[in-house]
């Protein structure tokens, strides 16, 4: 055998199209993979398959109509997006929200976080071959969606809350459902944990799968559970508290190696923390005067319908809000909330018109998904699928 290299057969690589519609990717993503057998040599992601031009549409819509656009970003936790948008506008117009409403929003947002993490974690289970946990825990997501239904009438694209508060008070049935949920969810989550957390097969599949170091994660502007799994304790709820999060007592769970198992565990732990937050919020609401569910801002908050028919003032306000005749201050605002996937930011420029002059969404998915090619390099195909599902890449938020 000569060692001048001529007789070494050049390796042949296969090109594999993973997606755009592949059952294992839970959404419309395309990855063109260069494969050496089962090993990924190179990957290239193509995104934009469900791009709907939200930033452009938002430049043509009055502020209250943009809420429905935010629903469709991370549709696994749309109430967080809704509340984030309301808070952005409230920051622009300078509205002080009553404490009771802030706590109610906290309850809604933490429920949304639980439903988001439930989907992500149970799907990690499915991708490792464990269907049972997914089917069990999904009953709990259904229970959360029943609460949404009672709050706003919708389940997935919620359009919940209004600028200045919430559209209606929590009904007795909401409190009832919430109590039942808080009673039934912890045992169900415990059961789910028992199925996966110390499961040998699950651990073998996920530990060391798709890791990312804290330095790389920060350089890629990761946020949310994926960043925390790499060991960086950045959580918008603690760093820049909104909606009175500073009054709540909760932990930020952290991982160390940033692999799939750590991402799973961080989300798992966050659900326990969310339950804690909801319980505290319920206690706090009991101390607040009952019946308040919005701020007193008639310029922005629609009056009750029966008053519109019988009261001149209310009719005028109703007309002004719906026709977009309300004075909106000029300004440049950035507001961020901790969404299911990390820092969900709204960068809003208002020139005093009835619609935003420019609205930019900082979408955590879009930003961290670009690291996927780096994380998948050198991994097996099945591990790449697992990495993707544990990063919780939501197509709606990716493409906006």
């Amino acid at each position: 055998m000569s060692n001048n290299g001529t007789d070494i057969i050049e390796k042949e690589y296969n090109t594999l199209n993973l997606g755009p519609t592949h059952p294992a990717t839970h959404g419309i993503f395309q990855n063109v993979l260069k494969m050496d057998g089962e090993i990924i040599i190179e990957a290239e992601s193509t995104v934009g398959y469900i791009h709907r031009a939200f930033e452009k549409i938002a430049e043509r819509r009055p502020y209250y109509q943009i809420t429905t656009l935010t629903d469709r970003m991370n549709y696994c936790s749309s109430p967080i997006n809704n509340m984030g948008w309301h808070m952005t506008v409230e920051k622009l117009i300078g509205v002080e929200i009553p404490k009771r409403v802030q706590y109610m929003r906290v309850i809604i947002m933490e429920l949304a976080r639980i439903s988001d993490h439930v989907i992500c974690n149970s799907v990690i289970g499915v991708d490792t071959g464990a269907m049972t946990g997914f089917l069990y825990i999904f009953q709990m997501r259904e229970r959360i969606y029943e609460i949404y239904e009672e709050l706003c009438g919708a389940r997935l694209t919620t359009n919940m809350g209004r600028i200045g508060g919430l559209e209606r008070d929590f009904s007795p049935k909401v409190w009832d459902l919430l109590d039942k949920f808080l009673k039934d969810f912890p045992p169900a989550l415990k059961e789910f944990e028992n199925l996966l957390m110390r499961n040998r097969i699950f651990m073998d599949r996920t530990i060391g799968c798709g890791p990312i170091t804290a330095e790389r994660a920060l350089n890629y502007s990761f946020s949310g559970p994926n960043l925390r799994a790499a060991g960086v304790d950045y959580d918008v709820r603690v760093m820049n508290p909104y909606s009175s999060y500073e009054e709540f007592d909760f932990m930020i769970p952290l991982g160390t190696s940033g692999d799939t198992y750590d991402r799973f565990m961080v989300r798992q732990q966050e659900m326990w923390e969310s339950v804690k937050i909801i319980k505290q919020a319920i206690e706090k609401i009991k101390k607040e005067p009952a019946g308040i569910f919005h701020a007193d801002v008639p310029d922005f908050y629609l009056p009750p319908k029966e008053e519109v028919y019988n009261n001149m003032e209310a009719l005028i306000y109703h007309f002004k809000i719906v026709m977009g005749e309300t004075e909106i201050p000029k300004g440049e605002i950035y507001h961020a909330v901790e969404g299911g996937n990390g820092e969900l930011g709204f960068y809003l420029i208002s020139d005093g018109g009835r619609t935003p002059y420019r609205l930019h969404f900082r979408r955590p998915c879009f930003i961290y998904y670009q690291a996927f090619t780096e994380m998948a390099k050198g991994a097996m195909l099945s591990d790449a699928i697992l990495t993707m599902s544990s990063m919780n890449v939501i197509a709606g938020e990716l493409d906006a």
Partner: protein
Amino acid sequence: MDNNSLLTIIQDKLTSQFGSDFLSAELVAEYPTFIVKKDSIANVIKFLYDDKELAFQYLTTLAAIHYPDNQGQEFAVMYQLHNLPKNLRIRVKIFFSVNDLAVPSITSIFSGANWMERQEYDFFGIQFIGHPNLKRILNMDDMDYHPMRKEYALEDGTRKDKDDKMFGR
């Protein structure tokens, strides 16, 4: 450190480091905002990244803005930086003309800027110089315009019933 003292500290540092390339500093809704010349943006962000005291090592987001009526400065790009350990947030902005859309890329400092810059190229046509893979990201490849520019109205221009005076901005 409150935002006012942060503003002065960064203002002093940028002035001594970049001289006339640093244009202005102000608090915009409690957010320290700095305007610099376009060609030095990558150096400014590198400086803010490397400086031991400031250490803005997290890129929150970047976004382009189109001001068609702003003669000579039709475009802007804003960068939001975050110092995580001290929890300081700032915004750096550049303004430039529609005739000169070449902006130095910051992908060598932040890997995460890759797609963010591609997005702004896709929607506004801003040419990021030094970007490793500057091509469209969300729109289809054969699109021949940049849709977020203000001259492309969202509504069909032939429609008469949606008068801008009544229903538009």
